[in-house]
């Protein structure tokens, strides 16, 4: 039993103790080719999410470069409309569904959340692994379709009736719909894992009031995912039914309605923006605190802002539909709601400035990216205020002004924080520091290129260039600005190449990081880099918001968890008192097999509705295999031991 061991901190020296060896044995993940598919540890799955999502960022970037190349001159013959429509649809779908959410929510969330909570693994690790394979399945379907000339060509939003059976024959729109099902099931699965981990696996003492802001944001995002994603699944599901079995949800001739689709889609689509932005804000809050060398100013206002953003995000969807001709009263309501979003976002901005102002800022590499975020996202947020105004929106809606706006918001709100976060947690993930010099080159190239490209697009929008056109006439005089915008791509590409070189080099020859190179406060920095498969030698306890800064040296650790089975500690959702122990189900091939059968059913249903009844039995079989009880099941002990003071 673990109690007999001497109690030592969660550092590298402990790696040699007997307890560490036993835990390493109990929590080991299978190796080898087959073992790869059985792995259920959150650090491994989290990094897989990130690497896969990054690959799709690069692929989406290639598509973006193709778009910029096509528009570089009027009447360019590089791409015809058929290919161009596929390319911009693929670009949007890839970036939103295969990059932004899987990277910012799933990738960072799965990797960081259990470590920050002080947990040995994520809750429901098999569901987590299953979600990863399903995400990969969706990505393969989408890109498989594109590479065989059946890439979706109806826009990432797939408005009906254009995407309906009458105007999009073939399977292109079906592939889009099913990709949505894949990726949304994946995001929902991870949302359940993350929310449960945060609510039930926090270290004893980490009450809601002491929860790091990042965990608050992940909790809010998980709940937003749970309530937003069903809307897009309903929208794409009904679209698929219209296309596949001849229902009439969106067919005006038979009592269907085209705006219904837009309502359903944007009821998801706008919260989606916050699902992408809030993880970025979470990273910024963490980094600002760490590099200002002081407790973050305004913990409570920031948390309230995050929760408010989550709520208000659900009441602004109609601002994507102003041009459909709504009654003025609802226009005013949605304008007001859209403007209201500025208040919580502004609060966070002001708190960040205040923290930096009254702290002792150290402008190290991750912080440089934070400043990039401040600048870029500020511009995006301000142009968002313009768009909330209905009359202005009616002019610039669906023009390159909007393209510029949301690239400032999404690249500002996701990509800049992502690089900040990657550079920040790179030592934790790899055990080595990333090169600050190359990182600075990466930053300046990317920052410069980004602003060249996307600031220019504002002007094109005001000059009347609509989105999603594959060409334009020379008499429109849009060429000069398009050339300028396209040159930015060169710098952004160069920046990304420097980043890849930096990662490759630093992984092999970077300076050894140690447990806590930034001397940050989060629990993830109390374990070795990279963390062992059991994460914490002893599950920690905390007595403040910034555990590693505040905890006294005699801060107790949890003992009494068995080391011969994968026992985890379950604590109370609100005050994080220990409640009971649970058993981690351990590695398994079944999540992968289940993902394969589910994928087969989904892909089959692109072609025939019979795929659902035919595909259901294998799915059920694999799910039973997954959930069938086996191995040692702990016996319940009736007496409950209270918190020991």
């Amino acid at each position, binding site marked *: 039993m673990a*109690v007999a061991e001497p109690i030592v901190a969660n550092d590298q020296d402990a790696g040699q103790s007997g307890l560490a060896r036993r835990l390493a044995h109990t929590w080991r993940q299978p190796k080898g080719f087959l073992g790869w598919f059985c792995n259920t540890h959150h650090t491994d799955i989290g990094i897989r999410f990130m690497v896969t999502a990054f690959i799709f960022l690069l692929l989406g970037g290639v598509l973006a470069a193709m778009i910029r190349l096509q528009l570089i001159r009027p009447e360019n013959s590089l791409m015809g409309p058929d290919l161009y429509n596929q390319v911009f649809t693929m670009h949007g779908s890839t970036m939103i569904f295969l990059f932004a959410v899987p990277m910012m929510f799933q990738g960072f969330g799965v990797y960081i959340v259990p470590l920050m909570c002080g947990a040995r693994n994520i*809750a429901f690790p098999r569901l987590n692994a299953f979600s990863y394979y399903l995400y990969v399945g969706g990505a393969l379907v989408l890109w498989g379709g594109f590479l065989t000339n059946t890439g979706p060509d109806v826009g990432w939003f797939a408005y009906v009736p254009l995407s309906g059976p009458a105007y999009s024959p073939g399977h292109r729109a079906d592939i889009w719909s099913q990709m949505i099902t894949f990726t949304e099931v994946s995001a929902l699965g991870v949302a359940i894992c993350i929310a449960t981990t945060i609510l039930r696996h926090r270290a004893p003492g980490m009450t809601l009031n002491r929860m790091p802001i990042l965990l608050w944001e992940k909790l809010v995002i998980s709940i937003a995912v749970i309530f937003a994603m069903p809307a897009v699944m309903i929208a794409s599901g009904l679209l698929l039914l219209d296309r596949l079995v001849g229902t*009439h*949800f969106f067919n005006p001739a038979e009592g269907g309605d085209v705006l*219904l689709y837009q309502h359903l889609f944007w009821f998801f689509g706008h919260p989606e923006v916050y699902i992408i932005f809030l993880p970025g804000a979470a990273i910024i809050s963490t980094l600002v605190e760490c590099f200002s060398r002081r407790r973050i100013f305004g913990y409570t206002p920031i948390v309230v802002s995050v929760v408010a953003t989550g709520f208000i995000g659900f009441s602004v969807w109609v601002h994507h539909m102003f041009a459909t001709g709504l009654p003025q009263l609802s226009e005013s309501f949605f304008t007001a709601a859209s403007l209201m979003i500025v208040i919580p976002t502004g609060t966070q901005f002001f708190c960040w400035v205040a923290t930096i102002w009254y702290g002792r800022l150290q402008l190290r590499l991750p912080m440089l990216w934070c400043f990039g975020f401040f600048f870029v996202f500020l511009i995006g947020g301000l142009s968002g205020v313009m768009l909330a105004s209905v009359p202005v929106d009616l002019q610039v809606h669906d023009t390159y002004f909007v393209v510029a706006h949301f690239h400032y918001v999404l690249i500002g709100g996701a990509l800049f924080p992502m690089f900040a976060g990657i550079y920040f947690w790179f030592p934790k993930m790899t055990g080595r520091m990333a090169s600050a010099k190359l990182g600075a080159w990466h930053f300046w190239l990317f920052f410069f290129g980004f602003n060249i490209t996307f600031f220019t697009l504002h002007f094109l929008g005001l000059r009347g260039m609509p989105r999603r056109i594959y060409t334009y006439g020379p008499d429109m005089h849009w060429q000069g600005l398009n050339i300028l915008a396209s040159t930015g791509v060169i710098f952004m590409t160069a920046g990304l190449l420097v980043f890849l070189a930096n990662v490759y080099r630093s992984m092999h020859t970077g300076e050894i990081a140690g447990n806590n190179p930034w001397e940050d406060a989060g629990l993830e920095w109390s374990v070795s880099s990279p963390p062992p498969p059991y994460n914490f030698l002893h599950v920690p306890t905390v*007595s403040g918001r910034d555990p590693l800064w505040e905890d006294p040296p005699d801060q107790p650790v949890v003992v009494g968890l068995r080391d011969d089975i994968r*026992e985890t500690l379950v604590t109370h959702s609100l005050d994080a008192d220990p409640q*009971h122990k649970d058993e981690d189900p351990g590695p398994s091939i079944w999540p992968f097999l289940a993902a394969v059968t589910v994928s087969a059913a989904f892909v089959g249903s692109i072609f025939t509705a019979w795929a659902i009844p035919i595909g259901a039995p294998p799915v059920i079989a694999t799910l039973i295999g997954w959930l069938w009880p086996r191995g040692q099941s*702990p016996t319940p002990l009736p007496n409950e031991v209270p918190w020991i003071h």
Partner: protein
Amino acid sequence: MDSLIEPIRRPRALDVSGLPSVAFGHRNTTWLANVFYMAIEGMMFALMFATYFYLRTRSTNWPPGHLPPAFTFGAVNAVVLVLSIVPAWWIRKRAPDANRRAVRNGLLILSFFALAATALRVFEFTALNCRWTDDAYSSTVWVLIGMHSGHLATELVETLVLLAISFTSKMEGTRLADAAINSDYWYFVVVTGLIVDSLIYGTTRFL
């Protein structure tokens, strides 16, 4: 919990070896996941209900040119669903006592109810007085009832699997908690089923 501000002096170890290894009710982690799952499914149902009423506003007659679905099977099924709450409640109540026999019997009875509800549902489909390809109204009716049937079938399979487990020696600890959680989910299926029934059979006649 003690005051959040003043740190309390504690011994250097927090011994949790005496804590139970299984929890029932809201303390169970799977219970929480099940709540999230019901939130997702509930959201889907809510959006389909919204779709139903939205499409209704776009049509002058409702149902447009159809007879409302014949309600005999639906009414019987509603009664079956309501009565099935009893075995579900029984399982939920007996599981924490580790009363394996009671839970097994409860699962057995619940399985019969689930089978009956599923069988009746098949007949309900024949009495809808429309085909999904007719118009938007018919599509909505079919998808509403189809969606709920999917849940019914899932719940049937889950109950049968738990029943199978209950005949083995593995029906203990966490599995008992799972059986109780299954009852929670059954409640959800019953409630959504009654709402779907009231939309399909009720609002087409009385609203």
